[in-house]
């Protein structure tokens, strides 16, 4: 089969899309405020025995276009709107993640995130001096979210050509990747101080609605938690003549019920979040809780209490899943709502069936001179898959393109396309994008070598011996089957819109592990030691040199040398007259 570039464009540039009408009529919405807010929670027991909870808060706003765009906000958070408006942002995606999503055991999440902080932004086409405005944007976001995003600048940002296309609408399909910036901070620790400002951006804050379930104590004891903030322009109506702004705030949590100390697999809202739900956010147009009960048919079944308001069967990409739906707005709240899942029999762990595509990554080599990165990509599909592999290597690890080897099943395969931007010391990271066709049912190894370099002594972070992080690689693929796939369709902002949303293919982005590497670390007191030592040597050398050239050793009885010792002697024995001096 011959690869054609048009094919790829079709696959990858899903730019303008068909907008499905919103699935709920805006009955209660007033005319003056042109925005709506939806809150959703998806609960899914994973085959590995973990429980996946995914919160999504979506604000869609028909913002007036123009310079005053974010001046007058209603449900849309003003603080964030100001940041986006001032920095000419077209699309903004921030995720703050602790832990690693284990694709092999957990399947695919609704929204992917790299460990640590990840930020990618499309700036508007008319933006001048993108690098400068990017720096300012990261500074403002860092203040907004209390994260160290201000450490993102040109030296650690990429402009990937293929991996990050706009997810929302664009005015013309001529995309210029000089307006996109992508950066990660793999070392970032995510904690309460990020959650609190994130919650403040919600219209109901954490006072009402699903956000009241997000209590720091029950979030930070999870195996994986990820906060997300996604702004993109979407079509206002089916004709797509006007644009609305969509803000999606997400929280992904994975609980391990066994280590939380409940002795059994049963879970409930109260067990997961510490308290029940007191009601919907009154500002929300819709409030839904979905519980994925697909595994009831294949795995250990569980019962739900109370009964759901609705059961939805979704067929997507050839795979059927079942959801029990709780419409929170239609439920009466006399006391806190607690959805309880009870397993009638103890959970039996079946053999893990990994998803269609997953990857792992590690470092090879020994010593502190040369090393290599190996990424293994597993394709479990019966057909070959086309993927884009994006490698994001910091400037202090120079990689060598000629050492790039892609091996699948012992056979070397040639990439369809390679896009390599060599890094520059202290100003640009190494960026490598490889378009590959990986064979069916295979494990593909991507191998590349790098060097270890010395940094300037001020460039080492505090605790330099901890090591240096290398951000995740990103694997983008267009999956032909919907197995394990939970992502949202491009047109729909809500989880609901992903039900029965069968498409030609499903865009998937995987993040691999981030790596840690030990660079040769100097002794940091060395500069001062060197100065002191060098100075002492110079002083030691100078003293005798000076003495030899300016003084002379002479006989004791000589009168020309009236040394200190003699003078001392003469002072001590004052009574005695100095000997007659021969002249």
């Amino acid at each position, binding site marked *: 089969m011959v690869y054609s570039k048009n094919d790829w464009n079709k696959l990858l540039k899903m730019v303008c899309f068909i907008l499905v009408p919103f699935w709920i009529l805006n009955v209660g919405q007033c005319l003056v405020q042109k925005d709506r807010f939806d809150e959703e929670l998806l609960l899914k027991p994973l085959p590995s025995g973990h429980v996946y909870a995914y919160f999504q808060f979506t604000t869609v706003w028909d913002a007036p276009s123009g310079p005053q765009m974010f001046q007058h906000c209603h449900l849309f958070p003003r603080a964030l709107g100001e940041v986006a408006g001032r920095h000419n942002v077209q699309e903004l995606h921030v995720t703050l993640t602790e832990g690693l999503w284990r694709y092999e055991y957990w399947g695919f999440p609704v929204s992917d995130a790299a460990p640590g902080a990840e930020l990618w932004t499309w700036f508007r086409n008319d933006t001048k001096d993108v690098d400068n405005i990017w720096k300012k944007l990261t500074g403002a976001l860092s203040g907004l979210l209390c994260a160290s995003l201000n450490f993102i600048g040109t030296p650690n940002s990429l402009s990937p050509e293929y991996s990050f296309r706009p997810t929302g609408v664009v005015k013309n399909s001529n995309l210029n990747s000089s307006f996109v910036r992508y950066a990660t901070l793999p070392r970032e620790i995510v904690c309460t101080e990020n959650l609190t400002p994130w919650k403040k951006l919600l219209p109901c804050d954490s006072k009402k609605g699903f956000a009241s379930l997000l209590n720091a104590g029950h979030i930070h004891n999870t195996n994986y938690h990820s906060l997300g903030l996604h702004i993109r322009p979407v079509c206002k109506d089916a004709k797509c003549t006007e644009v609305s702004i969509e803000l999606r705030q997400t929280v992904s949590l994975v609980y391990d019920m066994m280590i939380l100390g409940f002795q059994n697999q049963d879970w409930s809202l109260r067990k997961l979040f510490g308290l029940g739900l007191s009601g919907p956010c*009154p500002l929300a147009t819709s409030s839904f809780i979905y519980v994925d009960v697909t595994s009831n048919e294949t795995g250990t079944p569980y019962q739900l209490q109370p009964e759901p308001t609705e059961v939805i069967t979704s067929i997507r990409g050839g795979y059927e899943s079942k959801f029990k739906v709780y419409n929170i707005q239609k439920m009466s709240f006399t006391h806190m709502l607690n959805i309880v899942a009870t397993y009638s029999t103890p959970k039996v762990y079946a053999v893990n069936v990994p998803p269609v595509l997953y990857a792992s990554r590690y470092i090879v080599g020994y010593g502190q001179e040369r090393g290599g990165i190996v990424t293994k990509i597993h394709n479990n599909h019966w057909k070959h898959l086309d993927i884009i592999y994006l490698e994001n290597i910091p400037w202090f690890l120079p990689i060598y393109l000629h050492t790039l080897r892609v091996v699948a099943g012992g056979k070397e395969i040639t990439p369809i396309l390679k896009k390599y931007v060599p890094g520059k010391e202290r100003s640009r990271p190494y960026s490598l994008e490889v378009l590959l066709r990986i064979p069916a049912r295979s494990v593909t190894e991507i191998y590349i070598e790098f060097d270890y370099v010395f940094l300037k002594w001020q460039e080492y972070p505090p605790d330099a011996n901890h090591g240096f992080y290398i951000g995740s690689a990103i694997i983008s693929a267009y999956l032909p089957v919907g197995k394990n796939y939970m992502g949202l369709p491009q047109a729909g902002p809500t989880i609901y819109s992903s039900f029965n949303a069968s498409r030609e293919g499903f865009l998937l982005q995987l993040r691999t592990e981030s790596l840690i590497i030990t660079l040769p670390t100097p002794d940091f007191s060395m500069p001062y030691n060197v100065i002191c030592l060098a100075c002492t040597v*110079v002083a030691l050398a100078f003293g005798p040199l000076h003495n030899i050239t300016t003084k002379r050793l002479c006989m004791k009885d000589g009168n020309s040398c009236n040394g200190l010792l003699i003078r001392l002697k003469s002072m001590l024995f004052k009574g005695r007259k100095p000997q007659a001096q021969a002249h």
Partner: protein
Amino acid sequence: MSSHPSTTEEIKTVGDLPVEKIDKTDYRIYAAISYFVILIVIGLPLWWKTTEVYRVPLPYTRIAALNESDFVLVTNVTIASLDIDRGKQLASDLDNFFKTSKLFKVHFVVTQVQKQILASAQSIQALELSSVSRRQAGDILLLEVPGLPRFTPSQVLVGRRRIVYFATDTSSVKLTEVLQQWLFQEETLQRMISSMVSPTKSELDLAGRRRMPTASAYDVMVTIVNPDPEKVQLNWDLQEAIENFLSPFLRNLAPLADYNVKSQWLYFVPLQVQPKLVPEQPGIRKHFALSEELLPHIITPLEKKLASHVSQNPCLNFVVYVPPCSESPLYIYRQEGVILRGGVNAFLSPRWGGIIIHNPPQDICDNTTVVEPKPVEADWSKIMGTFLAQLRLLVGVPELDDIPRVSMLPLAASGMRQWELDSLYRVRIMEQLTSAMLTLQSLSQLLGEISNIVIDDEVGDSIQEAVSAVERGIELLHQGNLLAAFEASKQAFLSAEAAFTDPSLLALLYFPDDQKYAVYIPLFLPVMIPVLMSLKNIYLWAASKVRHKGKEKVD
């Protein structure tokens, strides 16, 4: 070396060795001298020069001289009277009064007006619109209107433009009072300057404390707080109300500063204080009381959601708080048992903004057929009217004290009188010039005290610019050109602030001296001691040479 035959002979008698010895002593001394020259004469200045903190030469004398230059506001006042002699008499009287003024230098010009012009005017409004009313910014026309009692009971009437109408029988004392207290507001200006120059000794007056500090741009943020959207529903078009009420006023102020208007809605932000329930009494309905001393506690929880992460401008906050029916009507109490005057349920926080409590109408609250959330309509003219009044105070238009038998024309839709704008210009000019001058002086003082501060070319340029802008501003004030003086003062203020707050000043500030010495001493101490000690030998050698020569001459 010693060429004198007799000396050589003398030494030669001792033996061969001494000749050599003398020569070698000289060489050693030359070596010591060359060490001294290389290390002390060349090395030390070189080291000094290369490790010197970079500083552009600055106009220190001009900065110091700014203190001596006096800020004088030259103002032209035209007295137009029917009788030229009476006009001249008034002018000389007024001139006498204003001679003592420190800030103002008033030039009085007397003209005669045709009686027909005045007689043809049907009302004061007609006069306001006529051609006589056009004046340059800062100038004032005192116009005698013989039939003033026809229009107003007052003796003196201050117009919306730059005209003061006075009746024929008005005394010069009264006119002085009007000029001093209302139009020039000299005392406010003086207090402002003295509080800036010596902040520990004098305090601002009330108007000065309310006025926002000077800046090139301000943010105006209107926030609507609905603490319980389940009970109260507000379908308000805030954006349109802002466009209708606030924008025309702010457009007037555009020459003074930029104003960016923003708005937001906040939900579930409760009052952090518990209002006191006042039960139903004869004549008084049940209501809730919020005493005045609790008001600062309301602002604190709001502050969390008012900050901007992008804008660096000072922000004027205006908050509408709509209490739910269960907590309304809510009234602010000035003190025990006294509801805030004027029935306006609002308060002003100086240099911060204002808060208005908008109670839902009682009939909607009492009507049980209206289901919750109860729709509440906005009384925009009341809300925005209050905000405009507060905005005037925050911007710097003071509330003027009453003068008996003197009144002014009511405000037009634009919300500002021209002479108010002029006095605002004067306040800002004085504030900006004084601030720039003080900033420059403290910068030059700091530079004298802390030797580690770097002044690069850019900062040097903005200091130069600030100094010349202050000088230009003072010069333009002497010429009576208010608008140009304002531009100069703004430039001076911004350049001085930019220079003072430039981060490059601090580049080396935290490089402590002890670290420098820790690095230098291991090298310098062992090297310098022998070199300095050898100075003595050089001196002795030179002295012996001189003595030798003297001897030679004697010989």
